[in-house]
């Protein structure tokens, strides 16, 4: 199984679970949960420094060196803001990896497809390894691949909603269209959502709140680690086709018949 790596641009990872670092009760639980998840790629946000608290070293000190950091452009509404945020992230964290998010509004946090494509094109041209957070729209996902994204990450349902994968059929279509890795990003509620994603052919799963918001985040992190491994194994093994009527698993020859029947 060690040969089965997730490849994103020039990078390879053994774990196919990517986790966020937000909304944990405290740093200790966050670190323990990330550890138990087995994740190698962890997401961070880029925010203005609080000048009143400029002595704080922040989350970087806790994560740097132990994990590969994946900065995001969360909270950006325009391609322009997303590109500048990505460039700042590259300078701050010395990485060309970027999780590109360009959202349309506060209520749905759904991606703005037009701005997303503009930003993706610009960042690819600027040398970034772009992992694009996208709608579960096969056409958009293909376009993101065409402009050079290293990974495309369709949402299962809105960020933080915990509604799972609302349109598994779109995921099947996206799987067929993409050659770059396809990761489920957003909407994950519990471990079975991650299993389903992997069984649908996702190359990985990115989530945050499903772990950090669980009653027991560390235990949920373990559950997700197993879920992603389990779903991956099932995808590789190949599921049986669905059929409407029964198909006996025991042999139909040599059945015992009593007299009088």
């Amino acid at each position, binding site marked *: 199984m060690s040969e089965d790596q997730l490849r994103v641009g020039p990078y390879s990872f053994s774990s196919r679970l990517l986790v966020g670092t937000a909304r944990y009760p405290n740093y200790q639980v966050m670190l323990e949960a990330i550890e138990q998840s087995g994740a190698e790629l962890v997401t961070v946000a880029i925010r203005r420094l609080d000048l009143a608290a400029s002595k704080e070293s*922040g989350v970087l000190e806790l994560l740097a060196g132990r994990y590969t950091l994946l900065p995001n452009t969360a909270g950006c509404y325009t391609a322009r803001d997303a590109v500048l945020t990505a460039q700042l*992230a590259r300078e701050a964290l010395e990485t060309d990896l970027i999780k590109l998010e360009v959202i349309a509004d506060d209520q749905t946090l759904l991606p703005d497809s037009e701005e997303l494509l503009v930003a993706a094109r610009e960042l690819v041209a600027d040398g970034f390894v772009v992992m694009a957070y996208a709608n579960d729209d096969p056409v958009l996902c293909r376009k993101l691949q065409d402009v050079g994204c290293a990974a495309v990450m369709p949402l299962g349902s809105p960020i933080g909603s915990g509604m799972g994968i609302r349109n598994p059929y779109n995921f099947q279509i996206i799987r067929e269209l993409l050659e770059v890795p396809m990761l489920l990003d957003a909407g994950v509620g519990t471990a079975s959502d991650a299993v389903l994603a992997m069984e649908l052919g996702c190359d990985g799963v990115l989530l945050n709140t499903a772990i950090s918001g669980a009653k027991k985040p560390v235990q949920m992190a373990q559950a997700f680690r197993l879920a992603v491994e389990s779903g991956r194994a099932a995808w590789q093994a190949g599921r049986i086709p669905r059929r409407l009527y029964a198909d006996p698993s025991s042999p139909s020859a040599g059945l015992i018949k009593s007299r009088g029947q």
Partner: protein
Amino acid sequence: MELHINGEKRRFSQSETINVSDLLDALAVEQRRGLAVAINERVIPKSRWSEFLVNDGDAVEIIRATQGG
């Protein structure tokens, strides 16, 4: 000199232009690992902080990584 730093207006006693490192000193920003600075929407690499000059009216963004999903 007046600068827009992270969206807020700030006045500095220096009348002359100063470089980015001096500006961070003036703001008492001690921990500089993991920081990035943009002036007028252009990222200024760390290697140029001691030579790049900030001018009156410039928009300065100073950022760092924080918890996110």
